[in-house]
């Protein structure tokens, strides 16, 4: 049995010391404090007047019946004093229980499992398009500085970040579905079609895994338009940022040295400019990804896409604390993972950071 003083000493070292384990522990603690803070804010919002979660989730006729109201309150613990409600929720949360959604009446984890993949499907497609096209267009823009291609790309990207995404959605829907008939209707699949057996929740992948190519293609055709609409804002941001990034790097001494060696402009861009540029572009890609959640709330609304955006809307409108926190935490987790990926990519791209350790 170690003496108490030695045990206290190790705890201190873990909290403040250097090295991998203390780092992880500190990060985890910060995350926990962050999440607790978020619960406090979310809970306060649901208690704001004149908002009432009960009224928000019961129909008008049901709300006028005192028995139904009482039953609802009891079921979700809303009859308890405010501070008890909060403590109960946080207590459960710390044990990994996300609670039951007031708006869907199902466990939040089930809701998330059902709605998250749908959003992930269009978000991944959107990110891929935005990154690929964005870096390409931004580099072209920088290379042809102030000439025609640059002017055109700049106008387009500036317009892209100025478009209200809900308006882009209905305009695109009108043109490509109603007028041109190129795009299928709303939703993820044809009305009445069977979704593929659930493996990942991404219909395109699941159908492929099931060997069902036609359903996979159908799912792809339904996701194209919402994904592209979602990509527009991120595409604009990444294009503009890439242009600025590349221009700045083009002014660096080592680019001048590369040119002074007689290398082709293409080689200079490919080998000397893109790698440093990639570093800052990765960072902005993270920010662009953030915009995707806000966008998905609106895009999923227009395209009746059953994803996290729609769920978030229902939870917010229903003042549904477990639902709100559920969505928020998934988003926060995605962020943390993305930051990790960015950190790793940084080390891969920049040898200086690698050498430094």
């Amino acid at each position, binding site marked *: 049995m170690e003496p108490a003083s030695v045990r206290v000493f190790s705890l201190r070292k873990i909290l403040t010391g250097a090295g991998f384990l203390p780092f992880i522990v500190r990060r985890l603690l910060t995350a926990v404090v962050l999440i607790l803070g978020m619960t406090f804010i979310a809970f306060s919002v649901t208690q704001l007047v004149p908002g009432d979660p009960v009224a928000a989730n019961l129909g008008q006729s049901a709300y006028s019946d005192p028995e139904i109201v009482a039953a609802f309150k009891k079921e979700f613990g809303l009859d308890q004093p405010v501070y008890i409600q909060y403590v109960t929720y946080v207590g459960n949360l710390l044990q990994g229980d996300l609670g039951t959604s007031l708006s869907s009446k199902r466990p939040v984890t089930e809701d998330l499992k059902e709605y998250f993949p749908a959003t992930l499907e269009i978000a991944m497609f959107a990110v891929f398009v935005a990154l690929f096209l964005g870096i390409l267009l931004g580099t072209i823009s920088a290379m042809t*500085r102030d000439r025609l291609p640059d002017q055109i790309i700049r106008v387009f990207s500036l317009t892209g970040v100025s478009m209200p995404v809900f308006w882009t959605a209905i305009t695109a829907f009108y043109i490509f579905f109603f007028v041109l008939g190129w795009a299928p209707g709303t939703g993820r699949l044809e009305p009445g079609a069977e979704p593929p057996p659930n493996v990942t929740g991404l219909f395109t992948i699941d159908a492929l895994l099931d060997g069902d190519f036609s359903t996979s293609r159908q799912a792809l055709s339904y996701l194209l338009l919402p994904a592209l609409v979602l990509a527009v804002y991120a595409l604009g941001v990444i294009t503009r940022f890439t242009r600025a990034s590349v221009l700045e790097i083009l002014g*660096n*001494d*080592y680019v*001048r*040295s*590369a*040119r*002074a*060696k*007689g*290398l*082709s*402009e293409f*080689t200079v861009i490919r*080998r*000397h400019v893109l*790698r*440093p540029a990639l570093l800052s572009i990765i960072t902005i890609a993270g920010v662009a990804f953030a915009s995707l959640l806000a966008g998905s709330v609106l895009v999923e609304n227009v395209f009746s896409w059953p994803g996290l955006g729609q769920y978030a809307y229902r939870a917010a409108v229903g003042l549904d604390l477990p639902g709100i926190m559920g969505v928020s935490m998934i988003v926060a987790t995605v962020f943390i993972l993305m930051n990790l990926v960015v950190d790793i990519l940084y080390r891969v*791209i*920049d*040898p*200086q950071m690698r*050498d430094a350790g």
Partner: protein
Amino acid sequence: MTLLKVTDLTVTLATSSGSAQAVRNLSFEIGSGEILGIAGESGSGKTMTALSILGLLPYKGKAEGSIYFDGREILTSSKKEYRNIRGKEIAMIFQDPMTSLHPMLTIQTQLTEHLRHHRKVSKDSARQSALELLSIVKIPDPAAALSAHPNQFSGGMRQRIAIAMALACEPKLLIADEPTTALDVTVQAGILKLLHQLRSERNLSIMVITHDLGVLSSLTDRIMIMYAGSEAESGKTSDLLLHPRHPYTEGLISALPGFAKEGKVLTSIRGVPPELGNFPSGCAFHKRCSYAQASCSSEIPTAIQISDSHRIYCPINPLTENSVR
């Protein structure tokens, strides 16, 4: 035998307040195996002169006049023709070795990429050449250096690597823009010695840009002094340093402790060098010149030959043969 002949070079740059001339009607020559030093204060146009030879002027910069290199006019080169000259026939090293090497690429890549581009050699053959280059510039353990990155080397070593990089395709002319300015004094001597050696062993012509008269005295055969984009004086190094005939050169040298007359107070040139776009009329130096006369503010000075190799641009030629140090 003349390798480089620049005639009436004028460089115009675009600034936030309009266009400005950084270099005005400059003419000079460099022979094969000759080391020419171009000296002057900041803003005299030295770097723009160098960049215009390689067609590397900054965005919206323009050069006019004539630059004759190795028997042909290169000022009117197309982008493709310039790329054929850069790194292959004329190479350049820059002032700050901390920023002029790419931080993310290996030394091997940076030493061999243009070699392979210009001469189409194999990767192994290029690697061999890179090893030889590194030993010529005296980098210890060349094999390990090849797979390292610039941030692992000191300033002096990086400049040596930059020189190795410049030599890779065996150019005829090396332009060195302030090669030792960013380095410690103790390291400078080594670089200068290296450049001297390269000239002797390879008959390499070198154009050294500097504001450091000490560098000039130890390295160069001839010097051209620039002021406000134009030449003030040019000639053999010994002539200029011991018998300067332009008031500006005289001022520069008397400001140096090593050259001053014993017992006399050190002087400095009053005033500050003019800013780009704001050059005074006539002889740009007239406002700071102790010998200036009324005509100096309106007459643009033409060349006065002091001897075969020594000339000044000054209408009054106030200093005589007897200003001996």
